[in-house]
Structure formats: structure tokens, C-alpha cells
């Protein structure tokens, strides 16, 4: 067997806020990829690191966790991976990342990992802050007490990374002996446990038992552990008491260890943190600063990204034109020019907004400010059944509900998390924006009132409506949902740090990529199908449109252009999609829409951003003449009233419909995955769409 090509499998483990990701980025550079763990939407980051000539390490960056007692799906990944010795991701060596300033707490996880009898390296990160904080370390003493090798690292300055590589390379010489004897907390119990399952490691058995008592059942298929349910000699509260004893036991050991190896000069500490906290969590200034940051964020997302978006829009329009001229004429060329290219354009156009959003969010998180926002907002949010931690998902929801729903994972209370998931899609996501923009431009006068532009006001009102709908329905759900569990809230308040450019850049690139390739594929597939449905029909009438229309208008002396328009619109009416549109017309007529809007509406249930594209297809199929979609839409008349199809009443009705309706298959899919049932996404779909229909109906009937 050739062993020279073998990669050393390394798992990076650590508390959140220890700079674990920075270490990962330093080790792997851009040589990394982000995927998902099978079956769940927990991000899996892995990369390759060259250790020396011919030897590489495969590095897996595990989700941040405070201990091996999982309280969330992300943390559970760490435990399942470490319990499964036969799994393909089971590491050869564990690298535990700690923050020199929080060494005491960070070592708790380290002592647990050591109990798994894995070769373990301890990385003490943020070494650059030691001087300022008056910390001195006796590495040798620590190595001896903790039974490990230590790398003192500053991921910010890039020092000590070579030491990690060196230690990984030499992992076989690492001790696998635990440093704390956990079974000392209840000797007889642990002896019995070991006797009952002699072939298993004791600490793993204990983790399996407490995991079952605390959180989710471990996936038995993934983890080859014995069925410990027969070994139920302790009640839940006794187990919890033991866990507390375990924590105390570990802290005693850690305190003893640090007493010798860790010195801190208190007078050098303090300072910046306290001052910043006083300002950023101030009862007035705290909110002022937060809203100022929000304002800046929205300014960036909507105003600054306008320019790249216009550019993308125009580029794809000309690309489409170009394809039509250059490729040989035929149906497949039409598919490319009318379906594929606009479809890809519809995805690419969101890149600037998504990138700006993640730029801001990752800066706020990296700097440590986000925890202060959570702290500041918790009380207010709780009144609506939400948590301070719901702020991040709600803000993210202004870009896209998909990452927003995933960002709810760190909310401890299930009820608060569920409510956040359910109401987030009300936030005005960027996919609604193009719909809003085109309809506002059509029906709201571009005039000023007291210096304020009506169109701008309407757009702002729609964002406000989205937010009010979100917190309002949260309040109702809060009153309706009954829960037996207490809600808990523990937020670490990390140190303030200047965000590292590299970390921020990698986050932005990764998140944008996953949007483009995740949501993008769906949008693309839908636009292909839509195009097909609009260009094919089931009956003779579709196929013989040209003949039928030519005969019908014989002797009327129509120009070539007019005749083509007539043919195309007749064809559309008889295409598959036209038939669907006609079929739902009675339902949407009271809202002021015709069958063409109906088609756009139906296709929007796959994804809202399809709306403008669909209308573009529908109205452009109708005419050869040049002109923007907006101009064509403005010319449409309502066959019922004879007036303009897009007027104030039908426009406002459409805007409200889009504000409330749940028209995003991807969000439904993600909600299903996060709640693990079809119940909640279905409730979302039905209720949000019902609210949308009713408000749109009222708006049209009142304004008409």
C-alpha cells in the first residue's frame, strides 16, 4: 500500500470567538471549500494544508462549541463526528483552539477532548494581546500538566502557524492520555458503566448518555455506540447534577493548572472593552448607533449596489441580443436567448446586494458588535415572542430569507427560534425589490410632496409593512404557541476586535457563491421551464396561430408588425402557461389582475424574482418594437374596465400581494429542513398567501 500520499486528517475544534476560523484561513489559505454535512444544513468547511514536502493535512473546521454537550444542531455535529471512530471524517489529530484571554473557559472543552483519547494539540491564539493584557504563560509547565503540546499563535499577525504545522506533522508522538479523570465524580457509577460496556471508551459512553438526556438523540446509524438506554440508573436531574460536578471537577483542575502556568497582571487589563460597552449599550446612544449602522447598511444594499446591478442588467440584455443574432436561428437559440440568459441574469443581478449584506454582517460579527446588539434588543424583542438573537435573522431577511432562516440556529429556545423562522419571510427580501421598483414606477407618480418623493415614500412604506407584519405575526404566534420549556438565553460578550480583512473577504465570497449556486440553479431551471411553457401549446390553435390570425384579419390591411403582434399574443394565450393564466383569472380578477399578471403570479410562487422576467417574456413576445418592459406594461389595458391595467388600485394591490405572499420555494424547503416537518412551511404558505390575497383584495376594491 502506498502511504506516502496519505493526508493527515485534522479537526479544528474550539469555542466560538477564539479566532478558530482565522487559524483555519491561515492554514489553508484559499485552498478551502464549504459544503454541508449530509442531511443537515450545517456548514462544513474543509481545506488542505501543505505541511512539508509530500505531506499534506486535510483540515476540517468544526462548528464552534463551548463543550461536548450539544445545545444546537451545529454543536451536535462536533460530537457525532468525534464519537464515530469509523467515520470518514474522524480525525487523526484534534487541534483545540483557545483564546489566551479566555484560557480558563476554553480549556474546559480541551479537557473533554483529551478524555476521548485522541492525539490533541493545544493552540493558544491571540498571543499578540498578551502584552497589553499583562498575561504571561509558562508553556512548559502547561504542556506538562495538560499532557499535550502547545502552539502559541497569533492568527492576526500570522505567527506560530508553522509551529502548528510542525506539531501536526509529528502527531504520532502526542500523548493520548487524558488530563482529568472525569470518572472521579462518581466512581461506582462509572465503574458499572464501564463493566456494562467493556469494549467502549468510558468517556464516550458518558457523552452518549448525557447527550440523550439533554438534547437530541444521536444518530445511531452514524455513530457506532451501544444502546445505553438499558443502562438508565440515573434520573435526568441526577445526570444533570453529575454534569455539574463534572464541570466543577474540570474547572478545579484547570484552576490548579493555570495557577502555575498563567500569570496575569490585573492592572494592565481593563480599558477599551468597558469604555466601548458603555457607549454601545447605552440606553440612548446604543440605539442611535445601531440604527445609524442599519441605515448605512440599507444605503449600501440598495443605493450603492444600484450601479453594478444596472450594469449587469444591461450586459445580459445585450448578451441576449447578441446570442440571437449570432447563433443559428431555431428553437434552442430562442431558449438560450429568451430563457437561459435572462434566467442567469436574474441570478447574477442579486450578487451585489447579497455581497454587501454579508460584508456588513460579517464585519459586525467579527468585531464583536453583534453580541451587543443582541444584548440591547433582547428585552424589546421578547415582547413579541422573539429573542435578541432574532435581530440577525430579521436583518438578513432584508436580503434573503434563506440565510436568515439558517441564522436562527443559535437561538436556544425552540419557541423563539420557531417564531423567528416563521416570521422572517415577511421581511422585504431583495427578490421583492425588482417587483416593487417596476410597479411603483408604473403607478405611483414621480412627484414631490413637501420635498419627499412619493415613490421613495412608497418603497419605504413597503419595507415598514414587511417589518410590522413580521413582528405583528410574531406577537400573535407568541400568544398562540404554548410551550412547556423555559426559554434560556446565554450570550457570550466577546472582546472587541478589528475585523480581519481576509476573514471578511472569505465569508463574503463563500456566502455569495452559495447563493448563486444554490438559489441560482433553481431560478435557472424554472426560467427554462417557463420559457418552454410559454412557447408551446397543447392545441391546434397554438400551432396554427399564424394561419388563424392571418385569416381573421384578412382585408384589414394590417402592417407586418401589427400582424406579428397579434399572432404572438394569440399564441401566448393558447400556450400551456396562457391556459393556466386563463384558468386562474376568475380568482385574481377581484384583485384587479388579468391573466398575464396571473401567469407571473403563478410562476412567482417558485421564486418572486421570476415576476419581472415573466412579464418581460410575456409582454415582449407580443411585440417586435423596441422599448423597455415598463413602457410595454404601461400600455396594457384592462379588458374589463377599458382603463389602464396598471393603475393605482391594481398596482397597490399587487404590491401588497408581494409584500405578504409566501412565494419562495427555496425558503419553504429550508424551513422544512430547519424545523424538520412539513407542518410549518405549509402553515407559512397558506397563512401568508391568505393574508396577501385578502389585503390585496381590500386594497383594490377600496381604491378602484
Amino acid at each position: 500500500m502506498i502511504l506516502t500520499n496519505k493526508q493527515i486528517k485534522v479537526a479544528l475544534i474550539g469555542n466560538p470567538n477564539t479566532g478558530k476560523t482565522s487559524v483555519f484561513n491561515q492554514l489553508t489559505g484559499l485552498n478551502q471549500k464549504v459544503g454541508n454535512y449530509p442531511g443537515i444544513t450545517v456548514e462544513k468547511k474543509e481545506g488542505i494544508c501543505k505541511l512539508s514536502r509530500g505531506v499534506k493535512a486535510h483540515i476540517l473546521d468544526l462548528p464552534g462549541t463551548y463543550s461536548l454537550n450539544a445545545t444546537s444542531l451545529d454543536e451536535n455535529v462536533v460530537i457525532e463526528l468525534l464519537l464515530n471512530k469509523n467515520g470518514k471524517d474522524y480525525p487523526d489529530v484534534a487541534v483545540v483552539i483557545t483564546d489566551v484571554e479566555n484560557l480558563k473557559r476554553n480549556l474546559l472543552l480541551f479537557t473533554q477532548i483529551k478524555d476521548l483519547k485522541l492525539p490533541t494539540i493545544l493552540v493558544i491564539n491571540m498571543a499578540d494581546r498578551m502584552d497589553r493584557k499583562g498575561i504571561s504563560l509558562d508553556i512548559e509547565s502547561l504542556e506538562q500538566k495538560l499532557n499535550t503540546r502547545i502552539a502559541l499563535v497569533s492568527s492576526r499577525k500570522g505567527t506560530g502557524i508553522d509551529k502548528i504545522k510542525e506539531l501536526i506533522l509529528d502527531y504520532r508522538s502526542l500523548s493520548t492520555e487524558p488530563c482529568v479523570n472525569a470518572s472521579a465524580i462518581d466512581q461506582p457509577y462509572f465503574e458499572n458503566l464501564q463493566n456494562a460496556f467493556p469494549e467502549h471508551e468510558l468517556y464516550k459512553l458518558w457523552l452518549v448518555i448525557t447527550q440523550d438526556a439533554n438534547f437530541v438523540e444521536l444518530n445511531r446509524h452514524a455513530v457506532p455506540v451501544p444502546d445505553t438506554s438499558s443502562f438508565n440508573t440515573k434520573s435526568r436531574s441526577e445526570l444533570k447534577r453529575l454534569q455539574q460536578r463534572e464541570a466543577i471537577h474540570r474547572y478545579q483542575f484547570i484552576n490548579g493548572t493555570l495557577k502555575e502556568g498563567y500569570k496575569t497582571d490585573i492592572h494592565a487589563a481593563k480599558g477599551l472593552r468597558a469604555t466601548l460597552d458603555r457607549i454601545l449599550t447605552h440606553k440612548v446612544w446604543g440605539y442611535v448607533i445601531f440604527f445609524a449602522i442599519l441605515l448605512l447598511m440599507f444605503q449600501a444594499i440598495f443605493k450603492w449596489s444600484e450601479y453594478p446591478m444596472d450594469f449587469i442588467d444591461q450586459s445580459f440584455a445585450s448578451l441576449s441580443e447578441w446570442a440571437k443574432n449570432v447563433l443559428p436561428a431555431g428553437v434552442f437559440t430562442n431558449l438560450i436567448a429568451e430563457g437561459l440568459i435572462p434566467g442567469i441574469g436574474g441570478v447574477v443581478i442579486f450578487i451585489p446586494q447579497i455581497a454587501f449584506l454579508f460584508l456588513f454582517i460579517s464585519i459586525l460579527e467579527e468585531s464583536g458588535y453583534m453580541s451587543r446588539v443582541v444584548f440591547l434588543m433582547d428585552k424589546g424583542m421578547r415582547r413579541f415572542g422573539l429573542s435578541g438573537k432574532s435581530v440577525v435573522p430579521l436583518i438578513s431577511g432584508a436580503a434573503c430569507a434563506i440565510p436568515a432562516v439558517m441564522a436562527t440556529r443559535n437561538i436556544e429556545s425552540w419557541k423563539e427560534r420557531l417564531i423567528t423562522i416563521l416570521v422572517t419571510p415577511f421581511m422585504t427580501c431583495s427578490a421583492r425589490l425588482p417587483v416593487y421598483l417596476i410597479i411603483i414606477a408604473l403607478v405611483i407618480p414621480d412627484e414631490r410632496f413637501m420635498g419627499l418623493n412619493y415613490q421613495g415614500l412608497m418603497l419605504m412604506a413597503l419595507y415598514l409593512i414587511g417589518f410590522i407584519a413580521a413582528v405583528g405575526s410574531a406577537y400573535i404566534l407568541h400568544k398562540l404557541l404554548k410551550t412547556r420549556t423555559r426559554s434560556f438565553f446565554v450570550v457570550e460578550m466577546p472582546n472587541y476586535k478589528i475585523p480581519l480583512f481576509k476573514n471578511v473577504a472569505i465569508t463574503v465570497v463563500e456566502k455569495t457563491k452559495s447563493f448563486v449556486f444554490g438559489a441560482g440553479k433553481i431560478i435557472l431551471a424554472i426560467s427554462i421551464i417557463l420559457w418552454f411553457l410559454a412557447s408551446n401549446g397543447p392545441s391546434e390553435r397554438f400551432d396554427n396561430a399564424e394561419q388563424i390570425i392571418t385569416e381573421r384579419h384578412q382585408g384589414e390591411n394590417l402592417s407586418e408588425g401589427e400582424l406579428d403582434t397579434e399572432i404572438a399574443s394569440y399564441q401566448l394565450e393558447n400556450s400551456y402557461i396562457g391556459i393556466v393564466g386563463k384558468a386562474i383569472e376568475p380568482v385574481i380578477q377581484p384583485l384587479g389582475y388579468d391573466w398575464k399578471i396571473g401567469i407571473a403570479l403563478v410562476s412567482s410562487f417558485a421564486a418572486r424574482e421570476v415576476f419581472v422576467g415573466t412579464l418581460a417574456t410575456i409582454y415582449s413576445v407580443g411585440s417586435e418594437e423596441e422599448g423597455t418592459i415598463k413602457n410595454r406594461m404601461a400600455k396594457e389595458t384592462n379588458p374589463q374596465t377599458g382603463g389602464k391595467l396598471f393603475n393605482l388600485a391594481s398596482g397597490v394591490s399587487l404590491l401588497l400581494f408581494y409584500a405578504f405572499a409566501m412565494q419562495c420555494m427555496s425558503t419553504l424547503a429550508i424551513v422544512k429542513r430547519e424545523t424538520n416537518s412539513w407542518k410549518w412551511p405549509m402553515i407559512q404558505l397558506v397563512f401568508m398567501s391568505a393574508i396577501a390575497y385578502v389585503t390585496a383584495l381590500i386594497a383594490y376594491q377600496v381604491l378602484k
Partner: protein
Amino acid sequence: MPDIQTILVYIAVTIAIGFLVRKFLLPKRKSKKTCGSTDCGCH
């Protein structure tokens, strides 16, 4: 006799439908119980 372009269109549409069906109707693997389906008090 359908021309090559028509065939290509049908292939593209089939791929698109196949992709959506796989994405939404046939989840690859049954995900396990999460901290969510019950009031398990995930602490």
C-alpha cells in the same frame, strides 16, 4: 423529423424538471430528528 434544436430544447427542459423534482420532492436522505420537532428543551 424534429431538428437538432428541438431535441436540445427537450433535453434542457427534462434536465430542468429533473433537477427541480430531485431538489424539492425527493430529499436525498431522511434527516434525523432535530432539536425542534418536540419541546425537548434543548439544553
